[in-house]
């Protein structure tokens, strides 16, 4: 049976890249919104809770956003696994010695591994803060309780470092994959990518430290 042209595009090597790029970039936008929201923690208990209340008052929009995120996560992780499998298969006999010529970065060479780690991290993160009984305790109390545990503080800081490494390759990669490169703008895009990953890493990573020390 002849495959539909659209399905054929999505399953081609460039199609898979495009799916990774579009979903990945959407996660970058999500991270930005998530970070801006989380910064309200610095405003104290009531400021944070008023943000949470307003966010939840969006109602159905939040549910739609959650479903979109879940769908994109399935696509991103699924394609990531498929790419990892196919790319491993494309070189059945490995080199006895393999040295980088300087093209790869820490981010690019660890993408499948940081990706797998982040998948596990997100599951844990959701069980920490999303799938919890919010009837008895406010979300602020849940956050401060969990982050009073030094293990969680260290783990969350480490995970944010991993996010930064993953994004450091992902961000500029989006533009390369979409063919949006330009000799004038590409250096800027690369710098924005590095800056973005640092902002995400430090922005999120400092929250557990602040909460455990001052809240």
């Amino acid at each position: 049976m002849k495959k539909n042209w659209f399905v054929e595009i999505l399953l081609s090597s460039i199609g898979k890249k495009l799916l990774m790029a579009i979903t990945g970039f959407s996660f970058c936008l999500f991270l930005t919104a998530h970070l801006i929201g989380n910064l309200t923690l610095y405003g104290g208990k009531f400021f944070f809770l008023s943000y949470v209340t307003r966010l939840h008052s969006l109602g159905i929009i939040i549910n739609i956003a959650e479903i979109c995120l879940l769908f994109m996560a399935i696509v991103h992780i699924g394609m990531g696994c498929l790419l990892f499998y196919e790319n491993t298969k494309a070189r059945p006999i490995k080199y006895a010695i393999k040295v980088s010529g300087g093209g790869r970065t820490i981010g690019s060479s660890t993408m499948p591994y940081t990706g797998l780690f982040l998948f596990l991290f997100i599951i844990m993160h959701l069980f920490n803060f999303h799938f919890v009984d919010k009837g008895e305790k406010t979300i602020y109390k849940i956050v401060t309780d969990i982050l009073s545990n030094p293990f969680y503080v260290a783990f969350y800081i480490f995970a944010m470092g991993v996010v930064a490494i993953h994004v450091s390759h992902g961000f500029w990669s989006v533009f390369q994959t979409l063919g949006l490169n330009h000799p004038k703008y590409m250096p800027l895009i690369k710098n924005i990518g590095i800056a973005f990953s640092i902002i995400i890493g430090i922005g999120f990573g400092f929250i557990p430290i602040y909460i455990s020390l001052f809240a």
Partner: protein
Amino acid sequence: MIKNINLTLKIWRQDAPDKEGRFETYEANEISTDISFLEMLDIVNEKLIIEGKDIIAFDNDCREGICGMCGAVINGRPHGPQRGTTLCQLHMRHFSDNEVIIIEPFRAAPFKVIKDLVVDRGSLDELIKTYGYISVNTGGAPDGNAIPIPEEIAEKAMDAASCIGCGACVASCPNASAMLFVGAKVSHLSLLPQGKIEAARRVLAMVKKADNIGFGNCTNEKECEVTCPKQVSIENIARLNREFIKACFCSTAK
């Protein structure tokens, strides 16, 4: 100043495509630092002939970096540690006395080892046969000049066309992807007016063929760009992606 060095070579030996391969150690003594890497292998082979042993098979032809025939992985680097050169242009002055050099063939599922360091790169020819051409006669040089092409575009097309099809991009890619090769061919032709006509059909056909052959997927590792002896840029992969998106969503080509 003439300087001689002694080397230990660990070379991949494989008798036939379906046979098991293994590394064998050879001593290369009194090697002049002025000779090329392939000349060094010639000397090792001459010694093997005198000893009545099977010589080390390796591909080579022009020995001046333009034919794309030579290539092996030297200490983990396709075409050796020097940038922008093929293996035949690598000289022994880049190695030190008593150094151990590991020599392997280019490795990728579509590149089957024929013998020792010789690999079958026919899959790259398959890609050219698929659509690495234009379907009209361009005529002689005066006809070519009948369509004015801006110098910048001509230069970009030439940069892409400088690909010699050696396969080092595939060999260096952590995913064994041929996207730099496909990107170079697609860019070279789609930048020029004669190639634009079939650009949409070409890019769809070539990407599909590369996938079917069993090359890996590009994940923007940039290893190809730094390994390419002709320093073909990954800008050509971005252009390939752009041409692919255009062909998929803005053309009637399937």
